[in-house]
């Protein structure tokens, strides 16, 4: 049994579609039964609609990709009216990813989403590297991040999971600060701030110059960060970063993750998450484990040499 409890919410399994890689769930419903997933994180939502970034938005790298979408979304009111009712029929946990350009937008956004039926968890996005104001600006310094979490906490009636940026000055201190400010869980990591240059035009590939790196290339660093954070906080940690196989997912669980999110791998193969669910279940059965909790954080706090 892969059933997993995250912030009091029961997930069928610990495999969640990562924000920004699964739309609002409708697109991939054409390819597989998305009710087999543990949950779906929505595309990053902001109170006001955003058109996102101009110019090229994707660039491939060895074992990865960079994106510069810039939080394009229809705005929270349109999400609540048009997308959420459809999402609620998908038969899996719904995690609303909420971002903002300033503190007021975060608070109002979380207040609106929190009041909606059918949202199970709110994932606070303080880690988008692709918007100039807001997004990751709130995810670099501990005190700034903590102030956002503290501001939305009173208006958030749902479990509050904070999505951390690997670009934080100190991601462990950041996680601790968010926990103290009232976070019920942390998810990590978002994409790494990265750069690509077109040597022919002698300019940055992206209009925004830097963009967010994801995919298998970031996995070992993300795994290290999850392990460090899991051993520093007392709230659940959701592991994200380059997970493409069930073995990858299991590594994150062994590093201390209660659940995992999968993003880029879905682009490579639409049904990648089902393979991960099936692989984890086979492993659990083969190892005669009652649940994967048995191996969660099995690495523990290994003393460094």
């Amino acid at each position, binding site marked *: 049994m892969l059933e997993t409890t995250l912030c009091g919410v029961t997930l069928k399994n610990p495999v969640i579609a990562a924000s920004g890689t699964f739309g609002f769930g409708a*697109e991939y419903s054409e390819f597989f039964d998305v009710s087999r997933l543990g949950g779906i994180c929505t595309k990053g939502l902001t109170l006001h609609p955003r*058109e996102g970034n101009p110019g090229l938005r*994707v660039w491939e790298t060895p074992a990865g990709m960079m994106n510069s979408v810039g939080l394009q979304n229809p705005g929270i009111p349109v999400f609540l009216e048009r997308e959420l009712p459809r999402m609620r029929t998908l038969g899996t946990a719904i995690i609303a990813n909420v971002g903002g350009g300033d503190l007021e937008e975060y608070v109002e956004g979380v207040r609106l989403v929190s009041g909606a039926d059918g949202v199970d968890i709110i994932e606070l996005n303080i880690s988008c590297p692709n918007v100039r104001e807001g997004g990751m600006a709130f995810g670099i310094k501990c005190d700034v991040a903590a102030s956002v979490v503290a501001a939305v906490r009173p208006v958030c009636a749902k479990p509050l999971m904070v999505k951390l940026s690997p670009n934080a000055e100190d991601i462990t201190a950041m996680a601790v600060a968010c926990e103290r400010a009232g976070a019920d869980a942390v998810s990590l990591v978002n994409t790494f701030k990265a750069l690509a240059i077109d040597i022919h035009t002698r300019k940055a590939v992206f209009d925004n110059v830097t963009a967010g790196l994801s995919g298998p290339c970031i996995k070992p660093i993300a795994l290290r960060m999850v392990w460090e954070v899991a051993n520093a906080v007392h709230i659940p940690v959701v592991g994200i970063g380059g997970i493409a196989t069930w073995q990858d997912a299991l590594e994150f669980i062994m590093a201390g993750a209660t659940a995992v999110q999968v993003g880029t791998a879905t682009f490579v193969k639409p049904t990648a998450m089902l393979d991960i669910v099936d692989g984890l279940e086979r492993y659990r059965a083969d190892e005669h484990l009652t649940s994967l909790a048995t191996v969660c954080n099995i690495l523990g706090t290994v003393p460094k040499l």
Partner: protein
Amino acid sequence: MTVPSPAHVEGVTVLSQEHLTDDVYRLTVATTTGGTPGQFYMVRAWEREPLLARPISVHSVDEDTVSFLYQVRGRGTELLSHLQQGGTVALTGPLGHGFHTEELRGRIAIVTGGIGIAPMFCLARTLPPGDVTVIAGFKSTPYAVAQFTDLGMDVRIATEDGCDGTRGFCTEIFDPHIYDMVVTCGPMPMMARVAHLCAEAGAPCQASLEAHMACGVGACLVCSCATVLGNKRVCADGPVFDAAEVIWHA
């Protein structure tokens, strides 16, 4: 025409790989997944690298085959060109919204630049040959044009180096005033010119856009294009758009 539902299929057998000219190939695979004119597949012929599959338009469809006409542009298409009969590919598709064939009535111009001719054969097979003029531009040696002549269509060619047809761009031998409907596919500046000419002449124009993609299904928003109705997803809202709605200079 009913739009087939998309699927992800692995181990699809390669029936043939034809080298047409220079860097242009035609790949035919055994699949019953079909597709309508203007739709595309995410195609993959490798294990790990490059990370993402490549969006390739449907060149022609039969009951149990799909063909892709493609140009080698980078590592992905280069690996596709290495495929041989009996090899396999992974396909996700058919994807996107293709040409609005129900609107194609009267005198029709198909205006293409380079590999933009790829999706047009599939479309041409659905049209009455006597009504269609194909105006195809190439840098140098033309390719994949004889099949339109074989259908009985009027084919006019422009080449930049003058090796065949009229020397120059296809847009220089295209007069939108004599057509009721125009469809186009090719490089963005060329399609922008076609769209401009059509707008001036009052001829409706459908344009099939190309974009770098990640998911191909509408989930990731990396292939967006600017339109008068806001950003649209080339993969899911297109790839075929009303040319008058596209903001070409964006």
